[in-house]
């Protein structure tokens, strides 16, 4: 048994491919747990960042700077009454949030956080991701229909039309990136997520800059479509609160509602991961071509540790700026402990064995975090599109451009 467990350690492949069920399970727990924590952190960050965009403070009461707010929210949502409308289709109503949640969590199976840090590496990885994430439309449609109410129904109709439409532009953009993976000696491309990143490594260029500006355009199309795909501002029509109160989840409350939120944020991270993998070089560190050599490698490998130290420093600045009043003693201590925890993690990340393992994951997560910040930024800045305009953008702007980029990429790929 122990041999079975340890046998994987030296392997240069994902546990799924190695067929090691134990490690696959470990990875599943780590990834799903990590994603859940990331969603909670994202929740807090979004509220804080949005608040600061809007000259507010955001949550400040629960824990220092509201750090424990997501937990308080979770407790509140769990203890809330779970209301099912009397005329609702109970079974469909019950299963809809689960479908969304399952669909958005399942895609994490193939997301490569590093060359071996993925649960498994399917050879149709990207296809699998697109397919499974498209299943969340079902949940939205079912939720809207099962609520047996007008606003959710309109919300779900809008949402299904929107998600299906943008999936097409998104798919076209993805295909043009996949075409780029075939520009090697053997001339065969790959759909595997790890294979796509490795192709970028071999070709010594992120696909964002490949055939400039083609790669960039495809990336931009994907970046727009993925916001629409996850129903976030400025494409948040399905849940436009000023028009449809809350769209497809109007009738949901408590735990089920929180499942929708969890699904939404999980999907946001998932599509951002696709974008990072396809165009931003996945786990590869920035400037792999210009800043080469062991010295630079060392510098870049130290960045994760320094990042955590910087976060710790920010926390300690917060500690210093805490009001000096007995009332705030616990909060100050809590924030100091939090900062200390971050600092310890930062120091741990300097240790050479940890440093080497964690680097890839760090760069991947850092790139995804940029997208997460963009999501918040969009939400603070943009008004909401109207439905017909949304469709116009999807079908008449993004799709033709995506097809054009695809054709040009194919031509360039053959010519060069």
């Amino acid at each position, binding site marked *: 048994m122990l041999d079975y467990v340890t046998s994987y350690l030296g392997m240069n492949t994902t546990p799924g491919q190695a067929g090691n069920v134990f490690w696959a399970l470990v990875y599943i727990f780590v990834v799903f747990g990590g994603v859940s924590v990331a969603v909670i952190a994202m929740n807090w960050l979004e509220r804080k960042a949005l608040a600061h965009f809007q000259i*507010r403070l955001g949550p400040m009461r629960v824990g220092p700077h509201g750090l424990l707010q997501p937990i308080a929210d979770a407790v509140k949502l769990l203890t809330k009454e779970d209301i099912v409308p009397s005329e609702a289709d109970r079974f469909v109503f019950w299963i809809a949030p689960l479908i969304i949640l399952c669909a958005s969590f399942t895609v994490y199976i193939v997301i490569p956080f590093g060359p071996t840090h993925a649960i498994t590496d399917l050879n149709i990885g990207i296809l699998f991701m697109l397919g499974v994430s498209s299943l969340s439309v079902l949940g939205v449609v079912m939720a809207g229909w099962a609520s047996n109410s007008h606003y959710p129904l*309109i919300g779900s109709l809008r949402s299904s039309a929107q998600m299906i439409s943008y999936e097409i532009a998104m798919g076209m953009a993805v295909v043009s990136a996949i075409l780029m993976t075939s520009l090697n000696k053997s001339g065969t491309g790959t759909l595997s997520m790890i294979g796509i990143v490795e192709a970028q490594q071999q070709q010594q260029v992120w696909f964002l800059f490949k055939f400039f500006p083609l790669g960039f355009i495809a990336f931009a199309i994907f970046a727009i479509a993925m916001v629409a795909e996850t129903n976030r501002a400025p494409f948040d029509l399905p849940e436009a609160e*000023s028009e449809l*109160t809350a769209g497809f989840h109007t009738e949901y409350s408590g735990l089920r509602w929180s499942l929708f939120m969890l699904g939404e944020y999980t999907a946001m991270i998932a599509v951002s991961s696709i974008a990072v993998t396809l165009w931003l070089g996945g786990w590869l560190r920035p400037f792999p071509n210009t800043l080469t050599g062991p010295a630079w490698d060392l510098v870049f490998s130290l960045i994760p540790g320094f990042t955590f130290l910087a976060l710790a420093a920010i926390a300690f600045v917060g500690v210093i700026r805490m009001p000096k009043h007995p009332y705030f003693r616990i909060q100050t201590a809590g924030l100091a402990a939090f900062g200390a925890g971050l600092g310890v993690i930062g120091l741990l990340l300097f240790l050479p064995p940890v440093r080497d393992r964690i680097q890839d994951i760090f760069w991947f997560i850092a790139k995804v975090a940029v997208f997460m910040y963009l999501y918040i930024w969009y939400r603070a800045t943009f*008004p909401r*599109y*109207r439905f017909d*305009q949304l469709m116009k953008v999807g079908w008449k702007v993004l799709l033709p451009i995506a097809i054009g980029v695809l054709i040009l990429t194919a031509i360039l790929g053959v010519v060069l």
Partner: protein
Amino acid sequence: MADPTTYLSHLELGEPDKTFLDSNELIINMGPQHPATHGVLRVILKLDGEKVLGTECVIGYLHRGVEKIAENRTYTMFNPYVDRMDYVAAVSNGLGYCEAVEKLLNIEAPPRARYIRVILTELNRLASHQLWLGTHALDIGAMTPLFYTFRDREEILKIFEKYCGARLTTHAFRIGGCQYETYDGFERDVKKFLDFVPPRIDEYEELLTTNRIWVERTKNVGKISAADCKALGVTGPVLRASGVKWDIRKALPYAAYPEFDFEIPTGANGDTYDRYMVRMQEMRQSLRIVRQAVERIPEGPIMAKVPKVMKPPAGEIYHSIEAPKGELGYFVVSDGSTQPYRVRVRPPSFVNLQALDIMVRGQLVADVIAVIGTLDIVLGEVDR
């Protein structure tokens, strides 16, 4: 003059676009509890998919019988009630009522009082427009301007609070003038505000005016022609956005307005974007008026000689002012006693709301939200 019968047809709601595949009509009840109806407005929408075939407004959820109350109160006692109609522009409401009764009594407020009135009313117009902008942008999905406008509106409310102790329902004016002299530093506060707010208005505009989504959401949405505006009695920024250069402050001046230099901003298309632009410019014009007023404010008494017991001679008067939302009129009938025989309020929101139907016909559900927002209604005033 448009043919009025075109408006009558709205009562038998339009028919859906008959196509090969008959789509279902959907009747949706928007409100009275809905985040975007600005209170307790209930709009019944008849939809063909997302397209609006017709609307009907159901109002009265906030009816408090203000006009009935007026008949049972003395002239002075009724004064605070008017603040409760358009509660975001309480000062304007008070101004209209006080001036109407002053006319009926045939007295005039002293110049200093009139200047104070202009300053506060224009600040209130700015506050009202700021509130409108914030909520309108929020309806269209831009969250952030709401907080910016509320931040700056706060400064106006602080001035009000320092002046008369109240922020929202100010009861700032009395029949015959103002009760309170300006506090020490009033001019300084107002001037500070005047310097501080124009960059803030630029900030709002930066977020919205050239924003592609904002422009797409508002251009050619809820269009109404000047002729339709006149026929439907629509006034205020909505009328001006349709290209009619008409403002009671210029056409039939009151208070101290003839003494100030300002312009009437107008639009050309009468769409939501134009109404937005007109109100943005009106904010700047209000600042201009306030600056002139504060610089030239005369010394002198602030109350005219008003009898202790007000008994206006029997007769009737109609007086209207340019409230932030349009023409706010008071039709006051006196029978010679201490109580008004009848007070009729001509609420701009109520009349403007009537135009909602023709503005949203044939447009999409999302446009209904935009148009309700752009009409700038306050349900307290619609229902009274």
